[in-house]
Protein backbone atom coordinates (compact mmCIF):
# COMPACT_ATOMS: atom_id res chain seq x y z
CA UNK A 1 0.00 0.00 0.00
CA UNK A 2 1.70 3.19 -1.21
CA UNK A 3 -1.19 5.54 -0.61
CA UNK A 4 -0.57 8.50 1.69
CA UNK A 5 -3.06 10.76 3.40
CA UNK A 6 -2.64 14.06 5.18
CA UNK A 7 -3.98 14.41 8.70
CA UNK A 8 -5.14 17.85 7.63
CA UNK A 9 -7.89 16.12 5.64
CA UNK A 10 -9.51 15.84 9.11
CA UNK A 11 -9.23 19.56 9.85
CA UNK A 12 -12.98 20.14 9.67
CA UNK A 13 -13.71 17.14 11.89
CA UNK A 14 -11.38 17.23 14.90
CA UNK A 15 -9.75 20.03 16.88
CA UNK A 16 -6.79 21.66 15.20
CA UNK A 17 -4.65 21.21 18.34
CA UNK A 18 -4.84 17.44 18.02
CA UNK A 19 -3.60 17.56 14.43
CA UNK A 20 -0.78 19.93 15.38
CA UNK A 21 0.21 17.59 18.21
CA UNK A 22 0.18 14.57 15.92
CA UNK A 23 2.57 16.37 13.60
CA UNK A 24 4.85 17.35 16.49
CA UNK A 25 4.86 13.84 17.95
CA UNK A 26 5.56 12.31 14.55
CA UNK A 27 8.66 14.47 14.20
CA UNK A 28 10.13 12.61 17.16
CA UNK A 29 9.60 9.15 15.68
CA UNK A 30 12.68 7.96 13.89
CA UNK A 31 13.07 4.80 11.87
CA UNK A 32 10.80 2.33 10.17
CA UNK A 33 7.40 1.21 11.43
CA UNK A 34 6.00 -2.15 10.40
CA UNK A 35 2.46 -3.44 10.90
CA UNK A 36 1.67 -7.12 10.36
CA UNK A 37 -1.71 -8.81 10.48
CA UNK A 38 -3.54 -11.60 8.67
CA UNK A 39 -5.48 -9.85 5.92
CA UNK A 40 -5.64 -6.67 3.85
CA UNK A 41 -9.43 -6.69 3.71
CA UNK A 42 -12.39 -7.86 5.73
CA UNK A 43 -12.75 -7.29 9.43
CA UNK A 44 -12.06 -4.44 11.79
CA UNK A 45 -8.27 -4.74 11.96
CA UNK A 46 -7.83 -4.42 8.19
CA UNK A 47 -10.32 -1.54 8.20
CA UNK A 48 -8.31 0.36 10.80
CA UNK A 49 -4.95 -0.33 9.14
CA UNK A 50 -6.33 0.77 5.76
CA UNK A 51 -6.84 4.20 7.30
CA UNK A 52 -3.87 4.23 9.67
CA UNK A 53 -1.05 3.30 7.27
CA UNK A 54 -1.63 6.13 4.76
CA UNK A 55 -1.80 8.61 7.64
CA UNK A 56 1.50 7.40 9.12
CA UNK A 57 3.08 7.71 5.69
CA UNK A 58 1.56 11.16 5.26
CA UNK A 59 3.34 12.20 8.45
CA UNK A 60 6.65 11.27 6.87
CA UNK A 61 7.09 8.09 8.91
CA UNK A 62 8.48 5.20 6.89
CA UNK A 63 5.70 2.65 7.32
CA UNK A 64 4.98 -0.76 5.87
CA UNK A 65 1.99 -3.06 6.18
CA UNK A 66 2.48 -6.75 5.54
CA UNK A 67 0.22 -9.72 5.91
CA UNK A 68 1.23 -13.25 6.76
CA UNK A 69 0.51 -16.15 4.46
CA UNK A 70 -0.48 -19.69 5.28
CA UNK A 71 -2.48 -22.61 3.98
CA UNK A 72 -6.13 -23.36 4.75
CA UNK A 73 -5.13 -25.48 7.71
CA UNK A 74 -3.16 -22.63 9.27
CA UNK A 75 -6.05 -20.20 8.93
CA UNK A 76 -8.49 -22.78 10.21
CA UNK A 77 -6.27 -23.21 13.27
CA UNK A 78 -5.93 -19.48 13.87
CA UNK A 79 -9.71 -19.18 13.53
CA UNK A 80 -10.02 -21.83 16.22
CA UNK A 81 -7.57 -19.87 18.36
CA UNK A 82 -9.64 -16.75 17.82
CA UNK A 83 -12.86 -18.49 18.80
CA UNK A 84 -11.54 -20.10 21.96
CA UNK A 85 -9.68 -17.00 23.09
CA UNK A 86 -12.43 -14.56 22.25
CA UNK A 87 -15.44 -16.81 22.64
CA UNK A 88 -15.81 -16.79 26.38
CA UNK A 89 -16.13 -13.07 26.92
CA UNK A 90 -17.88 -11.99 30.11
CA UNK A 91 -18.80 -15.47 31.15
CA UNK A 92 -20.39 -16.41 27.87
CA UNK A 93 -23.42 -18.58 27.86
CA UNK A 94 -21.94 -22.04 27.60
CA UNK A 95 -24.49 -24.78 27.67
CA UNK A 96 -23.10 -27.92 29.31
CA UNK A 97 -23.55 -30.97 27.16
CA UNK A 98 -24.78 -34.16 28.82
CA UNK A 99 -22.57 -37.11 27.89
CA UNK A 100 -23.24 -40.79 28.13
CA UNK A 101 -21.10 -42.39 30.85
CA UNK A 102 -17.74 -43.43 29.41
CA UNK A 103 -15.14 -45.88 30.66
CA UNK A 104 -11.81 -44.71 32.09
CA UNK A 105 -10.09 -46.17 29.03
CA UNK A 106 -12.34 -44.25 26.64
CA UNK A 107 -11.71 -41.14 28.65
CA UNK A 108 -7.97 -41.65 28.42
CA UNK A 109 -8.14 -42.31 24.67
CA UNK A 110 -10.14 -39.18 24.17
CA UNK A 111 -7.65 -37.13 26.18
CA UNK A 112 -4.71 -38.53 24.21
CA UNK A 113 -6.54 -37.76 20.97
CA UNK A 114 -7.12 -34.19 22.13
CA UNK A 115 -3.48 -33.76 23.14
CA UNK A 116 -2.29 -35.09 19.78
CA UNK A 117 -4.67 -32.83 17.89
CA UNK A 118 -3.54 -29.82 19.92
CA UNK A 119 0.14 -30.65 19.37
CA UNK A 120 -0.43 -30.83 15.61
CA UNK A 121 -2.23 -27.50 15.69
CA UNK A 122 0.63 -25.85 17.54
CA UNK A 123 3.21 -27.29 15.15
CA UNK A 124 1.31 -26.03 12.10
CA UNK A 125 0.94 -22.61 13.69
CA UNK A 126 4.65 -22.36 14.47
CA UNK A 127 5.61 -23.74 11.05
CA UNK A 128 3.75 -20.98 9.18
CA UNK A 129 5.04 -18.28 11.51
CA UNK A 130 8.56 -19.53 10.79
CA UNK A 131 7.92 -19.54 7.01
CA UNK A 132 6.68 -15.96 7.20
CA UNK A 133 9.57 -14.83 9.38
CA UNK A 134 12.00 -16.17 6.77
CA UNK A 135 10.22 -14.41 3.93
CA UNK A 136 9.51 -11.02 5.53
CA UNK A 137 11.81 -8.11 6.19
CA UNK A 138 11.20 -7.65 9.91
CA UNK A 139 14.10 -5.29 10.45
CA UNK A 140 12.22 -2.29 11.83
CA UNK A 141 12.37 0.16 14.68
CA UNK A 142 8.77 -0.48 15.68
CA UNK A 143 6.92 -3.68 14.83
CA UNK A 144 3.18 -3.87 15.54
CA UNK A 145 1.91 -7.43 15.40
CA UNK A 146 -1.88 -7.62 15.31
CA UNK A 147 -3.75 -10.45 17.04
CA UNK A 148 -2.65 -14.05 17.58
CA UNK A 149 -2.08 -15.19 13.98
CA UNK A 150 1.43 -13.69 13.54
CA UNK A 151 2.32 -13.53 17.26
CA UNK A 152 5.16 -16.08 17.05
CA UNK A 153 7.09 -13.92 14.57
CA UNK A 154 8.69 -12.42 17.70
CA UNK A 155 10.91 -15.51 17.84
CA UNK A 156 13.19 -14.00 15.19
CA UNK A 157 13.33 -10.50 16.67
CA UNK A 158 16.74 -8.92 16.18
CA UNK A 159 16.13 -5.34 17.19
CA UNK A 160 13.51 -2.61 17.55
CA UNK A 161 10.49 -2.40 19.80
CA UNK A 162 7.89 -5.09 19.24
CA UNK A 163 4.30 -4.46 20.25
CA UNK A 164 1.55 -7.08 20.31
CA UNK A 165 -1.71 -5.33 19.45
CA UNK A 166 -4.58 -7.46 20.69
CA UNK A 167 -7.96 -6.57 19.21
CA UNK A 168 -9.89 -9.36 20.88
CA UNK A 169 -10.98 -10.16 24.40
CA UNK A 170 -8.51 -12.61 25.94
CA UNK A 171 -9.61 -12.10 29.53
CA UNK A 172 -11.16 -15.53 29.83
CA UNK A 173 -9.49 -17.76 27.26
CA UNK A 174 -9.16 -21.47 26.76
CA UNK A 175 -6.18 -22.15 29.07
CA UNK A 176 -4.38 -24.61 26.74
CA UNK A 177 -4.37 -22.25 23.79
CA UNK A 178 -3.56 -19.22 25.91
CA UNK A 179 -0.63 -20.93 27.65
CA UNK A 180 0.77 -21.82 24.25
CA UNK A 181 0.43 -18.26 22.88
CA UNK A 182 1.54 -16.60 26.10
CA UNK A 183 5.07 -17.91 25.65
CA UNK A 184 5.83 -15.86 22.49
CA UNK A 185 3.64 -12.92 23.52
CA UNK A 186 5.57 -12.50 26.77
CA UNK A 187 8.68 -11.75 24.70
CA UNK A 188 7.20 -8.54 23.29
CA UNK A 189 8.25 -5.15 24.61
CA UNK A 190 4.62 -4.22 25.20
CA UNK A 191 1.05 -5.12 24.40
CA UNK A 192 -1.99 -3.03 23.58
CA UNK A 193 -5.55 -3.88 24.54
CA UNK A 194 -8.78 -2.15 23.59
CA UNK A 195 -10.16 -2.00 27.15
CA UNK A 196 -8.94 -3.16 30.57
CA UNK A 197 -11.65 -5.82 30.55
CA UNK A 198 -10.09 -7.55 27.54
CA UNK A 199 -6.55 -7.78 28.97
CA UNK A 200 -4.62 -10.54 30.73
CA UNK A 201 -2.86 -10.15 34.07
CA UNK A 202 -0.19 -12.78 33.37
CA UNK A 203 1.82 -11.42 30.45
CA UNK A 204 4.56 -9.73 32.45
CA UNK A 205 5.01 -6.98 29.88
CA UNK A 206 3.71 -3.42 29.66
CA UNK A 207 0.03 -3.25 28.71
CA UNK A 208 -1.22 -0.06 27.07
CA UNK A 209 -4.83 0.86 26.49
CA UNK A 210 -5.94 1.96 23.04
CA UNK A 211 -9.59 1.67 22.05
CA UNK A 212 -10.26 0.97 18.37
CA UNK A 213 -11.55 3.66 16.08
CA UNK A 214 -13.58 4.51 13.01
CA UNK A 215 -12.48 6.64 10.09
CA UNK A 216 -14.96 9.47 9.48
CA UNK A 217 -13.67 9.82 5.90
CA UNK A 218 -14.13 6.17 4.95
CA UNK A 219 -17.05 5.06 2.76
CA UNK A 220 -18.71 3.57 5.82
CA UNK A 221 -18.83 6.87 7.67
CA UNK A 222 -18.55 9.69 5.18
CA UNK A 223 -21.46 12.12 4.82
CA UNK A 224 -24.05 11.01 2.26
CA UNK A 225 -26.63 13.12 0.50
CA UNK A 226 -30.33 12.34 0.90
CA UNK A 227 -30.24 11.29 -2.75
CA UNK A 228 -27.48 8.75 -2.09
CA UNK A 229 -29.35 7.37 0.91
CA UNK A 230 -32.62 7.19 -1.01
CA UNK A 231 -31.02 5.30 -3.91
CA UNK A 232 -29.69 2.61 -1.57
CA UNK A 233 -33.01 2.19 0.19
CA UNK A 234 -34.86 2.06 -3.16
CA UNK A 235 -32.54 -0.73 -4.23
CA UNK A 236 -33.72 -2.80 -1.28
CA UNK A 237 -37.39 -1.83 -1.60
CA UNK A 238 -37.49 0.26 1.58
CA UNK A 239 -39.62 3.38 1.70
CA UNK A 240 -38.66 6.14 4.09
CA UNK A 241 -42.29 7.00 4.90
CA UNK A 242 -42.09 5.82 8.52
CA UNK A 243 -39.40 5.75 11.21
CA UNK A 244 -36.68 3.15 10.72
CA UNK A 245 -35.09 1.06 13.45
CA UNK A 246 -31.90 -0.63 12.27
CA UNK A 247 -29.48 -3.22 13.49
CA UNK A 248 -26.44 -3.91 11.31
CA UNK A 249 -24.82 -7.14 12.43
CA UNK A 250 -23.87 -10.62 11.30
CA UNK A 251 -26.52 -13.31 11.51
CA UNK A 252 -25.13 -14.64 14.75
CA UNK A 253 -27.04 -15.82 17.84
CA UNK A 254 -25.05 -13.51 20.08
CA UNK A 255 -26.40 -10.45 18.25
CA UNK A 256 -29.90 -11.35 19.56
CA UNK A 257 -31.76 -10.63 16.34
CA UNK A 258 -34.90 -12.43 17.63
CA UNK A 259 -34.77 -10.09 20.64
CA UNK A 260 -34.64 -7.09 18.32
CA UNK A 261 -37.68 -8.38 16.40
CA UNK A 262 -39.59 -8.96 19.65
CA UNK A 263 -38.78 -5.43 20.83
CA UNK A 264 -39.85 -4.03 17.45
CA UNK A 265 -43.17 -5.94 17.59
CA UNK A 266 -43.92 -4.48 21.03
CA UNK A 267 -43.24 -0.98 19.73
CA UNK A 268 -45.15 -1.55 16.49
CA UNK A 269 -48.37 -2.06 18.48
CA UNK A 270 -48.12 1.55 19.60
CA UNK A 271 -46.12 3.37 16.95
CA UNK A 272 -45.99 2.76 13.21
CA UNK A 273 -42.40 2.05 12.28
CA UNK A 274 -40.20 -0.36 10.32
CA UNK A 275 -37.20 -2.52 11.10
CA UNK A 276 -34.07 -3.18 9.05
CA UNK A 277 -31.87 -6.12 10.00
CA UNK A 278 -28.89 -6.03 7.68
CA UNK A 279 -25.85 -8.25 7.81
CA UNK A 280 -23.99 -11.16 6.41
CA UNK A 281 -23.04 -14.64 7.40
CA UNK A 282 -19.41 -15.27 8.31
CA UNK A 283 -17.93 -17.89 5.98
CA UNK A 284 -16.49 -19.80 8.93
CA UNK A 285 -19.70 -19.77 10.97
CA UNK A 286 -21.67 -22.95 10.33
CA UNK A 287 -24.62 -21.59 12.34
CA UNK A 288 -24.95 -18.36 10.40
CA UNK A 289 -27.41 -19.52 7.73
CA UNK A 290 -29.44 -21.29 10.39
CA UNK A 291 -29.76 -18.05 12.34
CA UNK A 292 -30.71 -16.22 9.16
CA UNK A 293 -33.53 -18.71 8.43
CA UNK A 294 -34.77 -18.49 12.02
CA UNK A 295 -34.86 -14.71 11.74
CA UNK A 296 -36.70 -14.92 8.40
CA UNK A 297 -39.25 -17.24 9.99
CA UNK A 298 -39.75 -14.91 12.93
CA UNK A 299 -40.21 -11.96 10.58
CA UNK A 300 -42.61 -13.86 8.33
CA UNK A 301 -45.82 -11.97 7.64
CA UNK A 302 -44.43 -8.66 8.93
CA UNK A 303 -44.21 -6.47 5.87
CA UNK A 304 -42.34 -3.72 7.72
CA UNK A 305 -39.48 -5.96 8.77
CA UNK A 306 -36.70 -5.94 6.17
CA UNK A 307 -34.29 -8.80 6.71
CA UNK A 308 -31.40 -8.13 4.35
CA UNK A 309 -28.71 -10.73 3.81
CA UNK A 310 -25.61 -9.21 2.28
CA UNK A 311 -24.48 -11.89 -0.14
CA UNK A 312 -22.13 -10.70 -1.59
CA UNK A 313 -21.53 -8.42 1.40
CA UNK A 314 -23.13 -5.00 1.44
CA UNK A 315 -20.84 -2.22 0.29
CA UNK A 316 -19.65 0.23 2.91
CA UNK A 317 -21.76 2.94 1.30
CA UNK A 318 -24.86 0.74 1.66
CA UNK A 319 -24.17 0.15 5.37
CA UNK A 320 -23.61 3.87 5.77
CA UNK A 321 -26.95 4.59 4.05
CA UNK A 322 -28.90 2.13 6.24
CA UNK A 323 -27.50 3.79 9.35
CA UNK A 324 -28.08 7.34 8.12
CA UNK A 325 -31.67 6.52 7.14
CA UNK A 326 -32.41 5.27 10.66
CA UNK A 327 -34.30 6.98 13.44
CA UNK A 328 -32.92 4.61 16.06
CA UNK A 329 -29.95 2.25 15.79
CA UNK A 330 -29.78 -0.99 17.76
CA UNK A 331 -26.90 -3.22 18.81
CA UNK A 332 -28.73 -5.51 21.16
CA UNK A 333 -25.90 -8.00 21.55
CA UNK A 334 -25.91 -10.63 24.28
CA UNK A 335 -22.13 -10.79 24.02
CA UNK A 336 -19.84 -8.49 22.09
CA UNK A 337 -16.22 -7.65 21.40
CA UNK A 338 -15.73 -3.92 21.22
CA UNK A 339 -18.77 -3.46 19.00
CA UNK A 340 -17.41 -0.58 16.94
CA UNK A 341 -20.61 -0.52 14.89
CA UNK A 342 -22.03 1.42 17.85
CA UNK A 343 -19.56 4.23 17.19
CA UNK A 344 -20.51 4.17 13.52
CA UNK A 345 -24.13 4.80 14.50
CA UNK A 346 -23.26 7.48 17.05
CA UNK A 347 -21.02 9.25 14.55
CA UNK A 348 -24.06 9.65 12.30
CA UNK A 349 -25.81 11.53 15.08
CA UNK A 350 -28.23 8.69 15.81
CA UNK A 351 -29.34 7.54 19.25
CA UNK A 352 -28.08 3.99 19.79
CA UNK A 353 -29.62 1.34 22.03
CA UNK A 354 -27.22 -1.43 22.93
CA UNK A 355 -26.77 -4.44 25.14
CA UNK A 356 -24.63 -3.74 28.20
CA UNK A 357 -21.82 -6.06 27.17
CA UNK A 358 -18.23 -5.96 25.91
CA UNK A 359 -17.11 -2.54 24.69
CA UNK A 360 -20.65 -1.22 24.15
CA UNK A 361 -20.88 0.58 27.55
CA UNK A 362 -17.72 2.52 26.69
CA UNK A 363 -19.48 3.95 23.67
CA UNK A 364 -22.99 4.27 25.00
CA UNK A 365 -22.96 6.43 28.10
CA UNK A 366 -26.38 5.54 29.42
CA UNK A 367 -28.89 8.36 29.04
CA UNK A 368 -26.18 10.61 27.57
CA UNK A 369 -25.26 9.11 24.20
CA UNK A 370 -27.89 6.37 24.07
CA UNK A 371 -29.35 3.62 26.20
CA UNK A 372 -27.99 0.37 27.60
CA UNK A 373 -30.65 -2.29 27.89
CA UNK A 374 -30.85 -5.73 29.45
CA UNK A 375 -34.08 -7.15 28.04
CA UNK A 376 -36.59 -7.07 25.20
CA UNK A 377 -38.93 -4.96 27.33
CA UNK A 378 -36.13 -2.53 28.10
CA UNK A 379 -35.29 -2.22 24.42
CA UNK A 380 -38.94 -1.73 23.42
CA UNK A 381 -39.46 0.93 26.09
CA UNK A 382 -36.40 2.88 24.97
CA UNK A 383 -37.19 2.59 21.24
CA UNK A 384 -40.71 3.90 21.83
CA UNK A 385 -39.39 6.69 23.99
CA UNK A 386 -37.01 7.81 21.25
CA UNK A 387 -39.58 7.55 18.48
CA UNK A 388 -41.97 9.71 20.47
CA UNK A 389 -39.34 12.28 21.41
CA UNK A 390 -37.41 13.57 18.42
CA UNK A 391 -35.80 16.23 20.62
CA UNK A 392 -34.46 13.55 22.98
CA UNK A 393 -33.15 11.60 19.99
CA UNK A 394 -31.46 14.71 18.70
CA UNK A 395 -29.84 15.44 22.08
CA UNK A 396 -28.52 11.88 22.50
CA UNK A 397 -27.36 11.81 18.89
CA UNK A 398 -25.44 15.06 19.25
CA UNK A 399 -23.79 13.94 22.49
CA UNK A 400 -22.97 10.60 20.89
CA UNK A 401 -21.29 12.23 17.95
CA UNK A 402 -19.17 14.38 20.26
CA UNK A 403 -18.29 11.32 22.34
CA UNK A 404 -17.06 9.55 19.22
CA UNK A 405 -15.25 12.67 17.99
CA UNK A 406 -13.20 12.78 21.20
CA UNK A 407 -12.68 9.09 21.76
CA UNK A 408 -13.20 6.80 18.81
CA UNK A 409 -11.86 8.45 15.64
CA UNK A 410 -8.78 7.32 13.74
CA UNK A 411 -6.93 10.56 14.59
CA UNK A 412 -7.01 9.74 18.32
CA UNK A 413 -5.90 6.20 17.51
CA UNK A 414 -2.97 7.57 15.50
CA UNK A 415 -1.98 9.89 18.35
CA UNK A 416 -2.06 6.96 20.80
CA UNK A 417 0.24 4.86 18.63
CA UNK A 418 2.72 7.73 18.37
CA UNK A 419 2.64 8.21 22.15
CA UNK A 420 3.23 4.51 22.74
CA UNK A 421 6.23 4.47 20.39
CA UNK A 422 7.67 7.44 22.30
CA UNK A 423 6.83 5.83 25.66
CA UNK A 424 8.73 2.69 24.74
CA UNK A 425 11.82 4.69 23.93
CA UNK A 426 11.55 6.64 27.20
CA UNK A 427 10.33 4.30 29.92
CA UNK A 428 9.80 7.02 32.56
CA UNK A 429 6.27 8.08 33.44
CA UNK A 430 6.82 11.64 32.26
CA UNK A 431 8.44 12.15 28.90
CA UNK A 432 9.70 15.51 27.85
CA UNK A 433 10.41 15.91 24.16
Amino acid at each position, binding site marked *: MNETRSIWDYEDIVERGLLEDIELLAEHISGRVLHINATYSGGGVAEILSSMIPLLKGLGIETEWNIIRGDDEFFSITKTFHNVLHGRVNGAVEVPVAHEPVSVLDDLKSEIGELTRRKEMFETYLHWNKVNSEEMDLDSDFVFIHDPQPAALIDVKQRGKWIWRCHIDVSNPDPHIWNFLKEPISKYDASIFST*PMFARPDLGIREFLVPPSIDPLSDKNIELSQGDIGRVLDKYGICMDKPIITQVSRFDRLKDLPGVIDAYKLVKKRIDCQLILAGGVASDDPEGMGVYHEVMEKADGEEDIHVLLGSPPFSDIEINAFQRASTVIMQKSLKEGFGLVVSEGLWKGKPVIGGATGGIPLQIVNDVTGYLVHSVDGAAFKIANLLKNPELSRRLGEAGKEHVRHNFLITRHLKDYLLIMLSLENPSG*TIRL
Partner: protein
Amino acid sequence: MTDLTFYRARYQFELTGKKARDLPELLAAIKEIDESSIFNHVYHALLDSHFLPIGYPNDFAHWIIDALHEPVLAERLANLDLREFPDIEALREELIRIIEDYMAMYDVSRRADVGQEFYFIRCISVTFPTRHVVTNMNEALETIKEIDLDSIFHYFIASRLLGGEHYKELSRWILRNDSHELIEKLDSLYPYGFANMDALRNEIVRIIEGYFWEHI
Protein backbone atom coordinates in the same frame (compact mmCIF):
# COMPACT_ATOMS: atom_id res chain seq x y z
CA MET B 1 14.25 39.30 28.60
CA THR B 2 14.55 35.56 27.88
CA ASP B 3 12.06 33.65 25.79
CA LEU B 4 9.55 31.28 27.32
CA THR B 5 8.33 28.34 25.27
CA PHE B 6 4.90 27.01 26.17
CA TYR B 7 4.57 23.23 26.40
CA ARG B 8 1.62 20.98 26.22
CA ALA B 9 0.98 17.40 27.24
CA ARG B 10 -0.78 14.39 25.87
CA TYR B 11 -1.58 11.38 27.99
CA GLN B 12 -1.31 7.71 27.24
CA PHE B 13 -2.89 5.12 29.49
CA GLU B 14 -1.29 1.95 30.78
CA LEU B 15 -2.70 -0.87 32.86
CA THR B 16 -1.08 -1.36 36.24
CA GLY B 17 -2.27 -4.96 36.56
CA LYS B 18 -4.16 -4.09 39.73
CA LYS B 19 -7.90 -4.35 40.00
CA ALA B 20 -10.51 -4.42 42.73
CA ARG B 21 -13.86 -6.12 43.13
CA ASP B 22 -14.80 -4.77 46.54
CA LEU B 23 -13.94 -1.98 48.94
CA PRO B 24 -11.17 -3.80 50.85
CA GLU B 25 -9.43 -4.56 47.54
CA LEU B 26 -9.90 -0.97 46.37
CA LEU B 27 -8.48 0.37 49.61
CA ALA B 28 -5.47 -1.95 49.52
CA ALA B 29 -4.68 -0.88 45.97
CA ILE B 30 -5.08 2.84 46.71
CA LYS B 31 -2.53 2.46 49.51
CA GLU B 32 0.16 1.17 47.21
CA ILE B 33 -0.61 2.26 43.69
CA ASP B 34 1.69 4.78 41.97
CA GLU B 35 0.83 8.47 42.04
CA SER B 36 0.04 8.75 38.36
CA SER B 37 -2.81 6.24 38.80
CA ILE B 38 -4.36 8.25 41.64
CA PHE B 39 -3.92 11.37 39.53
CA ASN B 40 -5.54 9.71 36.54
CA HIS B 41 -8.58 8.40 38.39
CA VAL B 42 -9.27 11.65 40.23
CA TYR B 43 -8.29 14.39 37.81
CA HIS B 44 -8.89 13.20 34.28
CA ALA B 45 -12.58 14.05 34.54
CA LEU B 46 -11.56 17.70 34.62
CA LEU B 47 -10.32 17.30 31.09
CA ASP B 48 -13.26 15.21 29.92
CA SER B 49 -16.04 17.25 31.44
CA HIS B 50 -16.07 19.90 28.80
CA PHE B 51 -17.83 17.65 26.34
CA LEU B 52 -19.85 15.13 28.32
CA PRO B 53 -21.96 15.59 31.43
CA ILE B 54 -20.95 13.16 34.14
CA GLY B 55 -22.65 12.10 37.33
CA TYR B 56 -19.61 11.94 39.57
CA PRO B 57 -16.36 13.81 39.18
CA ASN B 58 -13.88 10.99 39.75
CA ASP B 59 -13.57 7.33 38.83
CA PHE B 60 -13.60 6.05 42.41
CA ALA B 61 -16.96 7.65 43.20
CA HIS B 62 -18.34 6.58 39.85
CA TRP B 63 -17.35 2.92 40.37
CA ILE B 64 -18.55 2.81 43.97
CA ILE B 65 -22.06 3.87 42.98
CA ASP B 66 -22.15 2.02 39.69
CA ALA B 67 -20.64 -1.34 40.64
CA LEU B 68 -20.94 -1.48 44.45
CA HIS B 69 -24.14 0.54 44.88
CA GLU B 70 -22.81 2.42 47.91
CA PRO B 71 -24.27 5.91 47.37
CA VAL B 72 -23.16 7.39 50.69
CA LEU B 73 -19.50 6.61 50.11
CA ALA B 74 -19.74 7.62 46.45
CA GLU B 75 -21.12 11.00 47.47
CA ARG B 76 -18.38 11.51 50.06
CA LEU B 77 -15.70 10.81 47.47
CA ALA B 78 -17.47 12.94 44.88
CA ASN B 79 -17.45 15.85 47.28
CA LEU B 80 -13.68 15.88 47.80
CA ASP B 81 -12.43 19.44 47.85
CA LEU B 82 -9.36 19.09 45.70
CA ARG B 83 -8.13 22.50 46.82
CA GLU B 84 -7.08 20.96 50.11
CA PHE B 85 -4.40 18.74 48.64
CA PRO B 86 -1.02 20.19 47.76
CA ASP B 87 0.15 16.91 46.28
CA ILE B 88 -1.00 13.42 45.38
CA GLU B 89 0.16 11.90 48.67
CA ALA B 90 -2.13 14.21 50.63
CA LEU B 91 -5.00 13.22 48.34
CA ARG B 92 -4.17 9.53 48.75
CA GLU B 93 -4.28 9.89 52.55
CA GLU B 94 -7.69 11.50 52.38
CA LEU B 95 -9.06 8.81 50.09
CA ILE B 96 -7.81 6.17 52.52
CA ARG B 97 -9.28 7.99 55.51
CA ILE B 98 -12.72 8.34 53.91
CA ILE B 99 -12.88 4.71 52.81
CA GLU B 100 -11.59 3.37 56.13
CA ASP B 101 -14.10 5.47 58.07
CA TYR B 102 -16.89 4.16 55.89
CA MET B 103 -15.74 0.55 56.22
CA ALA B 104 -15.68 0.90 59.99
CA MET B 105 -19.33 1.94 60.04
CA TYR B 106 -20.97 -0.15 57.35
CA ASP B 107 -21.08 -3.69 56.05
CA VAL B 108 -18.93 -3.57 52.93
CA SER B 109 -19.12 -7.17 51.81
CA ARG B 110 -20.71 -6.33 48.47
CA ARG B 111 -18.63 -7.33 45.46
CA ALA B 112 -18.81 -6.03 41.92
CA ASP B 113 -20.08 -8.37 39.23
CA VAL B 114 -17.58 -10.06 36.95
CA GLY B 115 -16.65 -7.53 34.28
CA GLN B 116 -17.41 -4.61 36.61
CA GLU B 117 -14.06 -4.60 38.43
CA PHE B 118 -12.17 -1.38 39.03
CA TYR B 119 -9.01 -1.39 36.92
CA PHE B 120 -6.18 0.84 38.08
CA ILE B 121 -4.74 2.70 35.12
CA ARG B 122 -1.73 4.97 35.18
CA CYS B 123 -1.22 7.83 32.79
CA ILE B 124 2.03 8.57 31.07
CA SER B 125 2.44 12.19 30.13
CA VAL B 126 4.37 13.17 27.06
CA THR B 127 5.16 16.88 27.01
CA PHE B 128 6.42 18.78 24.01
CA PRO B 129 7.01 22.37 22.97
CA THR B 130 4.26 24.24 21.17
CA ARG B 131 4.76 26.96 18.58
CA HIS B 132 3.97 29.53 21.28
CA VAL B 133 7.18 31.33 22.30
CA VAL B 134 6.76 34.56 24.27
CA THR B 135 9.16 37.30 25.33
CA ASN B 136 7.04 39.41 27.67
CA MET B 137 4.02 39.20 29.94
CA ASN B 138 1.64 40.68 27.40
CA GLU B 139 2.50 37.93 24.97
CA ALA B 140 2.24 35.35 27.75
CA LEU B 141 -1.24 36.60 28.57
CA GLU B 142 -2.34 36.43 24.94
CA THR B 143 -0.94 32.91 24.72
CA ILE B 144 -2.77 31.75 27.83
CA LYS B 145 -5.96 33.09 26.26
CA GLU B 146 -5.26 31.15 23.09
CA ILE B 147 -3.68 27.80 24.02
CA ASP B 148 -5.92 24.78 24.19
CA LEU B 149 -7.44 23.53 27.41
CA ASP B 150 -5.12 20.54 27.61
CA SER B 151 -2.22 22.96 28.02
CA ILE B 152 -4.02 24.86 30.77
CA PHE B 153 -4.61 21.51 32.48
CA HIS B 154 -0.97 20.62 32.07
CA TYR B 155 0.46 23.85 33.49
CA PHE B 156 -1.92 24.56 36.30
CA ILE B 157 -2.89 21.06 37.45
CA ALA B 158 -0.78 18.19 36.17
CA SER B 159 2.59 19.89 36.31
CA ARG B 160 1.95 21.19 39.82
CA LEU B 161 0.78 17.86 41.21
CA LEU B 162 3.11 15.44 39.51
CA GLY B 163 6.35 17.33 40.15
CA GLY B 164 6.62 18.43 36.53
CA GLU B 165 8.89 21.34 35.72
CA HIS B 166 6.70 23.41 33.48
CA TYR B 167 4.73 25.31 36.09
CA LYS B 168 7.99 26.01 37.94
CA GLU B 169 9.51 27.25 34.68
CA LEU B 170 6.57 29.56 34.15
CA SER B 171 6.86 30.80 37.74
CA ARG B 172 10.59 31.44 37.42
CA TRP B 173 10.09 33.27 34.14
CA ILE B 174 7.43 35.51 35.66
CA LEU B 175 9.70 36.13 38.67
CA ARG B 176 12.56 37.11 36.39
CA ASN B 177 10.23 39.76 35.04
CA ASP B 178 9.95 41.12 38.54
CA SER B 179 6.33 40.15 38.90
CA HIS B 180 6.49 38.82 42.44
CA GLU B 181 2.96 39.78 43.26
CA LEU B 182 1.62 38.15 40.14
CA ILE B 183 3.30 34.84 40.80
CA GLU B 184 2.04 34.93 44.37
CA LYS B 185 -1.47 35.34 43.03
CA LEU B 186 -1.05 32.51 40.57
CA ASP B 187 0.56 30.31 43.21
CA SER B 188 -2.39 30.83 45.49
CA LEU B 189 -4.81 29.91 42.75
CA TYR B 190 -6.38 26.53 43.53
CA PRO B 191 -7.59 25.34 40.21
CA TYR B 192 -9.81 22.48 41.31
CA GLY B 193 -12.86 24.44 42.27
CA PHE B 194 -13.70 25.32 38.69
CA ALA B 195 -16.39 23.63 36.70
CA ASN B 196 -14.09 23.03 33.76
CA MET B 197 -10.86 24.11 32.16
CA ASP B 198 -12.48 27.08 30.41
CA ALA B 199 -13.51 28.51 33.77
CA LEU B 200 -9.99 27.98 35.09
CA ARG B 201 -8.48 29.70 32.07
CA ASN B 202 -10.83 32.67 32.55
CA GLU B 203 -9.74 33.01 36.18
CA ILE B 204 -6.03 32.92 35.23
CA VAL B 205 -6.60 35.57 32.59
CA ARG B 206 -8.55 37.66 35.11
CA ILE B 207 -5.68 37.47 37.62
CA ILE B 208 -3.04 38.48 35.08
CA GLU B 209 -5.13 41.28 33.59
CA GLY B 210 -6.02 42.52 37.08
CA TYR B 211 -2.35 42.60 37.98
CA PHE B 212 -1.47 44.67 34.91
CA TRP B 213 -4.36 47.03 35.53
CA GLU B 214 -3.08 47.71 39.04
CA HIS B 215 0.46 48.31 37.82
CA ILE B 216 -0.09 50.58 34.82
